[in-house]
């Protein structure tokens, strides 16, 4: 479904991604892991056209989308839930959600998507008329995911949903992602919380200093020495 080949990109003169290749099939839940500054967010930004690719190819459902403007990539069926969420704080929860369906505006479909999202996150229904800016941290994440789902995307990119949340809420957000996976939504999850991500993702890529250093099934990665040592705190020398 999404195929990235030898992608290079960065900001200004600073190259961040080096020959990154990645592949996601329909219905998969893939995690993109790695330390701070590895280029995970940059990769998502390049896929969605916020950052321009320098070289390499991005193909989505047989169509080259590398370098297209962001709105067109959204219309092609990719929803990006950013780290800072980019919610419309001065608008109501309902308005935020309805706007999520902007790309494919059709009253009947908006209503259907709205019911679907409110069913998935009942708490958003309770807060329907509240301004998005007044929601709690967890609710804001739910709203961002909900808004991302309103366009009925083929692929959902989620950047660090656990960031800045209390452990209880992190659990709730991951629960929601697991549910989405159950409903057949294709997801690429970017996370620093390696253990939890490997629990719900089927496959994962590990990005370090802008390069893919490891990839494979989550179960295998959980057993991998490098992963254990660098990310799971199970290093031998420390023990």
């Amino acid at each position, binding site marked *: 479904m999404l195929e990235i080949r030898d992608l290079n990109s960065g900001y200004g003169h600073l190259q961040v991604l080096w020959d990154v290749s990645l592949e996601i099939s329909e219905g998969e839940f893939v995690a993109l892991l790695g330390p701070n500054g590895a280029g995970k967010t940059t990769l998502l930004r390049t896929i969605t056209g916020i950052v321009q690719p320098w070289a390499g190819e991005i193909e989505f459902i047989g169509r080259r989308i590398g370098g297209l403007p962001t*709105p067109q990539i959204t*219309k092609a069926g990719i929803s990006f839930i*950013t780290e800072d969420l980019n*919610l*419309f704080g001065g*608008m109501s929860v309902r308005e935020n959600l309805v706007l999520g369906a*902007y*790309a494919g505006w059709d009253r009947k479909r908006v209503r259907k998507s709205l019911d679907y999202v409110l069913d998935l996150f009942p708490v958003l229904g309770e807060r329907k008329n509240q301004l998005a800016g007044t929601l709690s941290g967890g609710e804001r994440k739910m709203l961002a995911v909900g808004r991302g789902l309103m366009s009925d995307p083929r692929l959902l990119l989620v950047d660090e949903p656990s960031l800045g949340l209390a452990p209880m809420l992190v659990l709730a957000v991951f629960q929601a992602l697991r549910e989405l996976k159950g409903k057949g939504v294709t997801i690429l999850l970017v996370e620093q919380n390696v253990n939890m991500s490997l629990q719900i993702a089927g496959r994962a890529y590990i990005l370090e200093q802008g390069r893919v250093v490891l990839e494979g099934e989550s179960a295998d990665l959980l057993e991998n020495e490098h992963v254990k040592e660098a990310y799971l705190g199970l290093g031998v020398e420390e023990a």
Partner: protein
Amino acid sequence: MQVASVWNLFVTGILRGGLYALMAVGLALILGVINVNSFMHGELYMIGAYMGWLAHVVMGFDPIISFVFAALVSFIVGVVMEKVFFYPLRRRSKEEWLFDAYLVTVGLSFILQNLALAVFQPVFRGVPAYWEGSIRLSPTMSISIDRMASFLIAVIAIGAFWLFLRRTRMGMAIRAVAEDARGAMLIGIELDGVYALSFGLSSMLAGVAGAGLLSLIPASPSMGSVPLAKSWYVVILAGLGNVQGAIIGGFVVGMLEAVAYYVLGAGWQDVVSVFILILILLVKPSGLFGTEVKGVLER
């Protein structure tokens, strides 16, 4: 204070308020959506006034059709100016274009004023009245139909604009861009379209104000400077880029000026309004309805 003078005070205040609100809403829209400090807003008001005159006096159209004509021309002027001047500017430089854009608005203001001087001559172009007669409410209280009509036009224009922003897909897209441009792009909103539309609508509101008030204020090349200053005053008072606040702020300022005029005498109304503006900014630097203020040092 007599009933009649209170009534006059009220009518004057509300009428001024309607004009200020109409002008300030357009200015707040451009500020909120595109972040451009526009100093040519008064010239769009002037264009609206001339278009109203052209349609009503020269071409002999009905007042209502003249307003629609003025609104349409101002809208087109706004869109064309965005496409011709601001779009290339935005394209060329990513972040620093706002100051350039501000200077362009100042330049355009001079050009438009002198263009109007060349085309329409240094003569006042007005109409004695769109509609004759007045409504007598009591022996001492009356209001001319003409003034009533210009007030109604302001209210209808603001109301329609308000509904557009709240209820329609395009209106919601405009608000979304004002709230978070990146978030708007991520849900599929094309910024170029929203910017052009916002410029057009802002110009249209100013144009309607100019045409609607033609019988009270005749068209002349430099007629825009006072409304420009007032709308900036309202926008600063209400909080930069806050459309809702600009509506309320417009009426507050209108009433304030009318009262100051009555109590202290002619010439004092500007002193009082600026004094109150300073007081409000001392207590609440983001303006009455503003939510956040970015200090000069924080950037």
